[in-house]
């Protein structure tokens, strides 16, 4: 761990992956991946399945441990802390402070089935941020309004469509006021006719909130429209990254070309 700085300079990006590897036994999912994401940037991660794109998000959410390398959030290591000038594995208190900067939405929504839409949104603010019930309720109602589900606030997830559940999940993540929002294939489990309503919420998110967004997606059209930058992940590395116009209209890497033409054919 000696080669990694214990913290980055003040002009550090919001998120930095520094030579991050993730291995499961013999299988290398991420291979010394480097990635910088600036504050308020909207970055899409695309690539074939099994390329490791979801792992990028899962590592950043601390759902998995990195095997090698360091992730920095706001210039501070995510899962390491400094002791005597060295990086050591972070303790729970440090981990929770860093984790509070990050929010995530999942492919299968993962709403709490025993709580209403409103209770799902209020849970984090009350339990974690120690907001009063009243404050948590107001914040959650605002967000449910933002995602267009005020009228569904007292429904349990089982009574909501997939698109509605995903919008509640976005509101629930936003209620924690994260600085970085991770969207992991949030439309992949949805019926085609409700994908649009979720994408509209993400457009709003981008326009109205000061948020850094990392999005793993198969919606190429949407990625092209909304992203500041697109990263093509292949074999555990970022094979090509650039503005959407470059990646989609003039890809340099043959792997990117191959992937995009395969996706285009499927559509």
């Amino acid at each position, binding site marked *: 761990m000696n080669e990694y700085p214990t913290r980055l300079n003040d002009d550090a990006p919001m998120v930095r992956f520094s030579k991050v590897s993730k291995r499961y036994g013999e299988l290398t999912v991420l291979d010394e991946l480097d990635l910088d994401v600036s504050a308020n940037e909207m970055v899409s991660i695309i690539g074939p399945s099994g390329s490791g794109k979801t792992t990028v998000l899962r590592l950043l959410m601390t*759902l998995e441990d990195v095997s090698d390398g360091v992730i920095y959030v706001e210039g501070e290591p995510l899962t390491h802390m400094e002791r005597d000038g060295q990086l050591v594995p972070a303790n729970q208190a440090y981990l*929770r402070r860093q984790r509070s900067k990050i929010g995530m939405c999942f492919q299968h929504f993962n709403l709490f*089935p025993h709580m209403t839409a409103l209770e799902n949104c209020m*849970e*984090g603010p009350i339990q974690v941020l120690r907001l009063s019930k009243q404050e948590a309720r107001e914040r959650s109602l605002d967000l449910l309004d933002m995602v267009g589900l005020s009228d569904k606030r007292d429904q349990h997830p*089982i009574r909501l469509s997939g698109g509605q559940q995903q919008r509640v999940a976005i509101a*629930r993540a936003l209620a*924690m006021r994260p600085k970085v929002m991770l969207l992991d294939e949030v439309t992949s489990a949805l019926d085609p006719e409700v994908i649009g309503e979720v994408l509209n919420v993400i457009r709003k998110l981008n326009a109205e909130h000061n948020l850094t967004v990392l999005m793993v997606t198969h919606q190429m059209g949407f990625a092209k429209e909304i992203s500041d930058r697109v990263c093509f992940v292949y074999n555990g590395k970022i094979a090509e990254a650039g503005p959407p116009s470059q990646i989609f209209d003039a890809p340099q890497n043959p792997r990117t070309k191959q992937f995009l033409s395969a996706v285009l054919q499927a559509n």
Partner: protein
Amino acid sequence: MTYAEFLNEHGARLIDGSIITVQQTILAALLAIAIALVMGLMRLSSNYVVRSSATVYIEIFRGTSLLVQLYWIFFVLPLFGITLEKFTAGFIAVGMNLGAYGAEVVRGAIQSVPKGQYEAALALNMSPFSRMRRIIFPQALILMLPPWGNLFIELLKATALVSLISVTDLMFQAKQINGTTYLSIEAFGSALVIYYIMSRLVITPGMRWLERALSRHMSRA
């Protein structure tokens, strides 16, 4: 002698015994639930020592005979200076035994809650304790109720063993009546029916009701 005459003469003893059986069942069940929760959670601990001590407990109490455990608690522990009154020894032995089975039920139910629930709670930055208390356990509770229904029936029937250390439960009274009157069919037949009524008409519907009430409360589905 008709059965009515039999009941007239010995009914009071059967009722007294039934009351003791109910008391033993309730106390043993409470103890079993407490042990199951503690041991079940310990089995899921990331700490090796905590995890293996729960495993050792469960293996010992599941892997040996309840009757031997009962005799140990009542006859052997006094040799180590721990003397328990027979009523206490009775429900402690049954509770500790069934608690070991319950621990596996608790562990299984917690592990059956979809992993995404745990991840969503972690993504909200909830503490390990809040994750368990607010998100995982309430969902596990619904999953574990049916197997608990089974265990409570097992537990009720297992309390009959406490008659062997002279706790005056239903089985003890039936044996006493048989011993003095030789009316074996009436004595043990009555005990059989009373145990059946307790399990089939009290525990089973009680658990069904609890399942329904809980799932209504949890999801209003």
